[in-house]
């Protein structure tokens, strides 16, 4: 294994990692000066497109391509929404970026504003990230005080404002049109698409929504060039003409039953096994893993036998998961009951379904009730069939909901039942009960 030198996390933990002076001393805002001095907005977009950068928030859509969906010659305003509503269970990489190296993110935001001609960027920060909010606000204030935000940035004909906007504890605000609705002051009900935000987004104007880590990557793509970015990660599968590749470094979050939980930066494509063994210090208490969530709760499950799956944009899908998601790996050991894991998962989605679409609102609620019944020792074998059927019938893919929350709620259920069926059946037949959860109601 060759040692990978971190790029996105290179300044984390260093003294002065949050200040403008510290960032500049490490070459910060060099990429912005280069873009404003030597490149047109279209050229910056082209660089990002050439790099193959795919969105880090979960969907993996090519970032530069997304930017080109904006209407040409629009009179404006155009908005950039930065998705810092990171709420996918197991995911905390954007929190670390914002808390530890806010200017790296802000430089990416400014580059994106320049490339897309956005005049205002709203950074939607989940309420739970109080420290991120304060560190980012301080960094924004520093930028205004140093002519790096506002009018005529760096003396050029480039103007941009950045405002931080705090959420209020709703997972659905991470869905890009839910985020926009929430920003506008409404309940965060995702919109039917089309129109996509690029055409009609925040305040009915063209809008780009990008994830924090994606924008941090933009900083380095402009600074080091797309060839550097493409030298890291996994090229497209030549046998799959639709594969856009999995280029660049990725922040992997590792949590659950490992000896050293944490966030580690590696080239896209590391296997779960290498991540757990080499970077997480192995499974805790000398035990074996039973399985894991490969990329945030909504991606489904991998069994221990599937741990050689590469965590690039294709790997988890080939193993039956929904996708790479946020690349947040949650490991559970061999002593953990899959019944408890699935109940916890279903409870999360029942709590976070926004209630707009009936199949999701009712489906997530019933999946929680049925898994609760199973864990209380009153399950029936046909419950597994019902759960599977609900899991298959809710979501964008079957065409029954407006957004992907329901796909993410159904996927772990489908995966758990197909991959751990024997354990569910044995549990139901035995009539055992999971330990009582005192005090904790369903909602």
């Amino acid at each position, binding site marked *: 294994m060759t040692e990978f030198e971190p790029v996105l996390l290179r300044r984390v933990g260093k003294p002065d990692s949050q200040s403008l002076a510290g960032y500049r001393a490490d070459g910060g805002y060099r990429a912005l000066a280069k873009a404003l001095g030597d490149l047109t907005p279209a050229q910056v977009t082209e660089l990002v497109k050439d790099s193959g950068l795919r969105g880090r928030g979960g969907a993996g859509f090519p970032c530069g391509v997304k930017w080109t969906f904006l209407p040409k010659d629009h009179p404006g*305003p155009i908005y950039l929404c930065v998705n810092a509503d*990171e*709420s*996918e*269970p*197991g*995911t*905390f990489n954007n*929190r670390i970026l914002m808390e530890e190296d806010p200017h790296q993110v802000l430089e990416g935001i400014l580059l994106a504003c320049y490339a897309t001609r956005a005049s205002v960027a709203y950074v939607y920060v*989940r*309420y*739970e*990230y*109080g*420290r991120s*909010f304060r560190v980012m606000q301080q960094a924004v204030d520093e930028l205004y005080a140093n002519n790096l935000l506002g009018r005529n940035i760096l003396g050029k004909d480039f103007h941009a*404002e950045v*405002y931080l*906007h*705090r*959420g*209020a*504890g*709703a*997972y659905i605000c991470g869905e890009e049109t839910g985020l926009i609705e*929430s*920003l*506008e*002051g*409404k*309940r*965060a009900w995702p919109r039917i698409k089309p129109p996509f935000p690029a055409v009609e987004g925040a*305040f009915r104007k063209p809008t780009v929504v990008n994830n924090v880590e994606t924008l941090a990557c933009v900083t380095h793509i402009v600074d080091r060039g797309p060839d550097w970015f493409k030298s890291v990660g996994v090229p497209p599968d030549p046998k799959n003409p639709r594969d856009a590749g999995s280029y660049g470094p990725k922040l992997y*979050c*590792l*949590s*659950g*039953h490992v000896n050293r*939980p*944490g*966030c580690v930066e590696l080239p896209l494509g590391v296997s779960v096994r290498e991540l757990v063994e080499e970077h997480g210090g192995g499974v805790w208490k000398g035990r074996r893993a039973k399985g894991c*969530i490969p990329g945030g*709760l909504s991606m489904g499950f991998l069994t221990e036998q599937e741990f050689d799956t590469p965590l690039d944009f294709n790997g988890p899908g080939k193993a039956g998961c929904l996708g790479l998601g946020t690349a*947040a790996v*949650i490991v*559970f050991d061999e002593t*953990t009951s899959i019944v*408890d*894991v699935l109940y*916890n*998962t279903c409870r*999360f989605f029942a*709590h*976070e379904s*926004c209630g707009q679409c009936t199949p999701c609102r009712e489906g997530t609620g019933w999946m929680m009730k049925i898994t609760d019944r199973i864990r209380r020792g009153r399950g029936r074998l046909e419950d597994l069939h019902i759960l599977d059927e609900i899991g298959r019938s809710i979501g964008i893919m079957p065409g029954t909901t407006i957004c992907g929350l329901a796909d993410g709620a159904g996927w772990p259920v489908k995966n758990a039942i197909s991959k751990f069926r024997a354990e569910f059946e044995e549990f139901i037949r035995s009539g055992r009960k999971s330990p009582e*959860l*005192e*005090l*904790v*109601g369903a909602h």
Partner: protein
Amino acid sequence: MSVLTEELRQKIVAYLAHYPRKQAVTLPALHVVQDALRCVPLEAVREIADLLDLSPAEVQDTMTFYGFFRDEQAPLGRTRLWVCRSLPCMLRGGEELLGRLGEKLGVRPGGTTADGKITLEFAECIGACEGAPCVLVNDEHVMNVTLDRVDQLVDSLRA
């Protein structure tokens, strides 16, 4: 009688410059009020609506969607203590932590201690999974809150 002081009004009005539409100030305004009053009374909803040229029903609609804001029937205590119960924390004792904190404080999730100091709530993933089990004290993470650290945490919040 007005619930919002002049200071709170000015804090809310200052947000208007950030957005092209007044309605976008709804969430910032609700935060300003709840931070100061520990709840958003119905009268404050009316006054926010007035400041933003909205119907009070529109503010109420947004406010109640989030399940985050309290009305005057159930104001927050001085500290809101959120205990994460999502999978990464559950795997490392989050449910037991919530149970123990409930016992220690003598309240169920959602409740506030009799002295008005601590409101206990469960949370879905709060994004500090490397330090599971974790909690939020208002909006600051406290990580690795194992059962042996419960007394220390509660004492610090009661002080």
